[in-house]
């Protein structure tokens, strides 16, 4: 093997590394995958993946710089990475030494979100007839919040203020970053198993990216398939994360969420007092109505015999009048006479012959006569 130039591995790697280091810094676009970050590590590691054909590139960035960017990247996010290639000499592995990262394409995100929204809507997850009404008096309220405290405190304070008897079980979870979506979905399930009969998702306002977990398919499905009603109080009025669409009730603020999830104790008391007053009034009025009806009946009862007598007298008078009209007296007074032979009333000339004795009855008496 004379004249052959042989390098040690170390020398080879070192040579390649030196050569690589002369390459310029440049921008590379890809999807973040396998993001690994630990507080005790000096660097953050991830793999940049080509979304088209899956080609991969290992990348490394000093943890301090990575943290300072506050990007809260999650797997699958599109980024532009500025860096230069370098060789990890010990292992002979090529990687991109990252100087900065920029999230790429909120537009792309929006489009993806819109696609997800369309497909979930087509499945009927947001349908109005799926919406359930909330229990009027929840036994146990399950609250999913982050540890950012503000939203959690807001909801709890208002729930307790409105309705001191409320029972609440709180599940604190991650509400942003790559771990948030599965954590939220799990928390919803946990709270249901704890016996919650209504779930409140509460998170204060945040950037578009901050609220992304609440549009994550896993969270949306967890909300839609939740066995008890869900109130979504995520972000501000203008934000509409997809979980809002799947929830049974959408609350614009944590205060609003408290208002829809528990009744107002003072209002309940007032309503109860009103019901009692009405009860008294109603009972009184009913009793009065009975008394009036009774008095009226009594009155009629008292007058009944007299009334009956009067009616009978009146009827008698009528009969007498009719009888009077039928009597011949009135006719006789007008000048007619009743002629009898023996006891027969004479109606025809055939009934008498000359010399017959007849009696004639006129209005004021009778007299005898002889037929000629």
């Amino acid at each position: 093997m004379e004249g052959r130039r042989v390098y040690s591995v170390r020398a080879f790697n070192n040579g390649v590394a030196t050569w690589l280091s002369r390459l310029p810094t440049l921008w590379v676009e890809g999807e973040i995958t396998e993001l690994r970050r630990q507080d005790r590590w000096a660097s953050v590691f991830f793999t940049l993946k080509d979304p088209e054909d899956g080609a991969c590139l290992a990348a490394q960035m000093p943890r301090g710089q990575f943290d300072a960017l506050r990007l809260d990247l999650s797997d699958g996010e599109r980024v532009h990475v500025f860096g230069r290639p370098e060789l990890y000499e010990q292992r002979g592995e090529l990687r991109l030494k990252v100087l900065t990262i920029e999230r790429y394409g909120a537009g792309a995100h929006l489009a993806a979100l819109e696609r997800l929204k369309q497909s979930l809507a087509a499945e009927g997850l947001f349908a109005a007839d799926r919406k359930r009404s909330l229990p009027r008096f929840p036994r146990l309220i399950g609250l999913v919040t982050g540890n950012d405290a503000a939203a959690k405190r807001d909801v709890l304070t208002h729930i307790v203020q409105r309705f001191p008897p409320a029972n609440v079980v709180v599940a604190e979870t991650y509400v942003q970053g790559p771990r948030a979506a599965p954590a939220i979905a799990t928390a919803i399930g946990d709270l249901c198993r704890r016996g919650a009969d209504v779930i409140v998702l509460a998170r204060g306002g945040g950037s578009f990216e901050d609220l992304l977990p609440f549009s994550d398919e896993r969270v949306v499905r967890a909300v839609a398939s939740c066995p008890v009603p869900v109130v979504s109080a995520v972000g501000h009025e203008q934000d509409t994360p997809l979980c809002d669409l799947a929830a049974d009730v959408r609350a614009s603020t944590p205060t609003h969420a408290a208002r829809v999830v528990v009744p107002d104790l003072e209002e309940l008391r007032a309503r109860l007092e009103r019901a009692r007053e009405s009860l008294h009034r109603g009972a009184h009025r009913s009793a009065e109505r009975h008394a009036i009806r009774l008095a009226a009946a009594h009155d009629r009862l008292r007058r009944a015999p007299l009334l009956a007598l009067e009616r009978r007298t009146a009827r008698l008078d009528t009969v007498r009048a009719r009888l009077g009209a039928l009597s011949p007296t009135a006719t006789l007074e007008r000048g007619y006479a009743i002629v009898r032979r023996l006891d027969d009333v004479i109606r025809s000339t055939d009934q008498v012959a000359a010399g017959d004795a007849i009696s004639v009855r006129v209005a004021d008496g009778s007299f005898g006569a002889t037929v000629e």
Partner: protein
Amino acid sequence: MTEVTFEEAQRELEQIVERLERGDAGVEELTQLWERGEELYRICAAKLEGVRGRIEELSRGAGQN
């Protein structure tokens, strides 16, 4: 008597009030309704008084990994 919920008691009380206001309850029934109404009022009022709920924290880690 079996334990009624506040909601049930309140609903029954309001139904009784409605009946009374319609004024078609018989005299014997009237007394019964009124007494029942008062009882329901007491049940509801007792349920609203002095009850304090509980707030508990699900142990951290249960909802996440």
